[in-house]
């Protein structure tokens, strides 16, 4: 293993070199990796060197013409495709710098106001407002934020490596960095700050036919049996007499690992599945195409032809219904996982989060941010106490 890690260190320096000398090629590669960006949890080996290209030019701004030379550097982020919708939507809103009179994206007017507006109530544009909380000067112009933000899409592992190597400011990850980079918890605390911006539920879905035939609730024990090959027919769990088509996720990916850990009890628990798919979209498609399938995927991919089932964990029934007593949106639901944005502690930022990063991250930790960037893209918002704890990790506001 030690020889192996040495090899990887060598690979990193090669990658840096390639980045600096072949920016055009890297940009092309970044496009490719964006397309192939599969499911969020993938602990990547970081082989796609192009991913870092967005971080390589951190000093440059996406709207160079408008911004002055003294403007703060662009905040760059990259990583997990699971965190990407949150991060990217936030970045789009930020870069738009919509005025408070917009009503749809920011602020309020006669047609309506954005979620959580009553706690903000400002005349400033969106990015101006959040940036000024950390001492940045407002521009007052639409599409010209005090500093730009940019988010690239890859894998959790790649995002963690990019933030470790200083290629980006923020590393998006759907798994803990300790697992992605194989580091200890004390190493994590020394080098990184973990900003949790939302939660991802991993509901268990079944094909519509199975749901209609009466399987609308399973116990944790039954799901374990299905995924470990002990239960092979739907009639054993109260359904029709039909074989079960068990859909798993790419071997060793973040999603696979967290399911083994949370549902089967151990990160390397044995599984016996009929197919393994890499991406949420594929799981959705296969569950729709087959009339006997069971699978798990990110909540954001729920759709027609598939149904989430309620799960009974040791007597508590978590229902896929926001109004139920216990829901799959609760943080107690065992298949939920935190969505992380990591920043790095170094000489310049001993707190781990500089003012630019803090201004951007703070936007997600408001009622407005939680509703717009987390809930609206079908992820689970943080409870108030967690938001307070996350805010405490940011530097003091100006």
């Amino acid at each position, binding site marked *: 293993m030690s020889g192996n890690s040495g090899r990887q260190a*060598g690979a990193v320096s*090669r990658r840096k070199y390639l980045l600096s000398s072949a920016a055009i090629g890297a940009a092309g590669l970044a496009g490719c990796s964006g397309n192939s960006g599969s499911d969020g949890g993938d602990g990547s*080996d970081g082989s796609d060197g192009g991913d870092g290209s967005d971080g390589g030019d951190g000093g440059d701004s996406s709207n160079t013409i408008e911004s002055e030379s003294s403007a703060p550097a662009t905040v760059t982020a990259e990583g997990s495709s699971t965190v990407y919708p949150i991060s990217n939507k936030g970045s789009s809103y930020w870069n738009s710098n919509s005025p408070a009179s917009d009503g749809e994206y920011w602020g309020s007017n006669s047609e309506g106001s954005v979620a959580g507006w009553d706690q903000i109530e400002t005349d400033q544009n969106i990015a101006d407002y959040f940036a000024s909380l950390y001492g940045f000067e407002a521009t007052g112009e639409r599409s010209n934020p005090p500093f730009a933000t940019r988010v690239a899409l890859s*894998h959790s592992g790649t995002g963690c490596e990019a933030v470790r190597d200083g290629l980006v400011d923020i590393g998006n990850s759907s798994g803990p960095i300790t697992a992605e980079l194989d580091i200890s918890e004390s190493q994590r605390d020394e080098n990184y700050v973990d900003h949790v911006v939302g939660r991802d539920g991993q509901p268990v879905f079944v094909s519509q036919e199975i749901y209609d035939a009466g399987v609308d609730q399973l116990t944790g024990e039954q799901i374990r049996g299905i995924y470990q090959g002990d239960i092979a027919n739907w009639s054993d769990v109260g359904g029709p007499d039909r074989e*079960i*088509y068990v859909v798993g996720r790419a071997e060793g990916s973040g999603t696979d690992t967290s399911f*083994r850990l949370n549902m089967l009890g151990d990160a390397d628990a044995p599984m016996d599945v009929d197919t393994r798919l890499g991406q949420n979209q594929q799981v959705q498609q296969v569950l729709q195409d087959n009339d006997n399938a069971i699978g798990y995927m990110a909540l954001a991919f729920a759709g027609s032809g598939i149904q989430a089932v309620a799960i009974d964990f040791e007597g508590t029934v978590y229902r896929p219904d926001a109004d139920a007593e216990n829901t799959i949106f609760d943080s107690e639901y065992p298949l939920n996982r935190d969505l992380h944005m990591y920043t790095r502690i170094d000489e310049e930022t001993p707190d781990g989060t500089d003012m630019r990063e803090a201004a951007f991250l703070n936007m997600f930790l408001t009622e407005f941010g939680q509703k717009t960037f987390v809930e609206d893209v079908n992820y689970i918002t943080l409870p108030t106490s967690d938001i307070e704890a996350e805010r405490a990790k940011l530097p003091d506001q100006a």
Partner: protein
Amino acid sequence: MSFITPKTDWRDSIDRRLTRTQEFIDDTDPAALAVVAVAMGSLLAAFVGFLLASPWTAVPLGAFLVATGYGWVRHQALVARAVTFAMTTVTLVTLGLIVVFIFAESIPAFQYESARVFGVSVPGLGMFAQARWDAVSDPVRYSLLPMIHGTVMVTAIATLVAAPLGVSAALFIAEIAPPRVRELVKPGIEVLAGIPSIVYGFIGFTVINPWAGGAFALNGGSTYLFVGIVVGLMALPTVVSVAEDALTSVPDVMKDGSLALGATDWQSMTAITLPAAFSGVSAAVLLGVGRAIGETMAATVMLAGVPRISEPLINVFYGYETLTSLIARGYGSANGVHESALFAAGVVLFVTVLCLSLASQYIEARMRRRLGGAE
């Protein structure tokens, strides 16, 4: 020649070579020689810089470009010789580096899968002596047998589809079709070759797999049968083009002779044209097989992705995993020995394709001997 002992022969050849080099240097313009030397030296330096991942690699590379550009204007003939030689070398060196890299990367997996035979530890034997692949849960094993089985199944079915269809289509285009039909069909087939493999895979995933699941009452719709058919269709244009070229290149005098003796068109085709073009036609089929072995996208999208051997062995109605789809599915999340095992799958693929290529060379050489009448 045969009376000279090998040693003096060897020394002689060195001497001769040295003399020839000396003559060449004497005959050539020293300025041109200097330019070529600078260009080649800086190319070599750039290569060394690349291997060392030095940030200064761009400097010798730039020097090479400048020297070549200058030389191209002043001493074109000599520089062109040097540059074409250098480009050939670059191709070979690239191939060599790739081979070395995939072999080196696969070493940890071969070591992990060592097995003892009669007290001797044989690295990599565990990949072929047992059939369990599980990269996560205990016991972690990396057998490549399920994937080799999958690749063999897909390739066999694809060949059964592509070879007869391809050869008969080539025969039709080359020998039977009127010129106007040929002019329409030939570009059509070449367009077929241009369709990206993901398109086939996507159609397979969204149309064929769901249909197959229902039509054959399968648990899920992934089958080697339909992956093989799809891959066979993808290999078809290669087979048709190459076989058609081979059939057209049979000299007309051979066919005319047969026709003059009173044979029918069909008799001439089977007795003269096909045997005469046999080496080209078999090369076409082998190229198609090579395409089928290496096909990744369609297999990855359509197969189940669970390394398992179907029961019985020839059951084509379940499709699990091939060597290529294993790599495509696993590269994003693999690390450590798992990643190395994916490289081992790459090594197996490489060796297979190498053997295939050698086999096609051998067939071609044998056919040439037979038809050329050397023996």
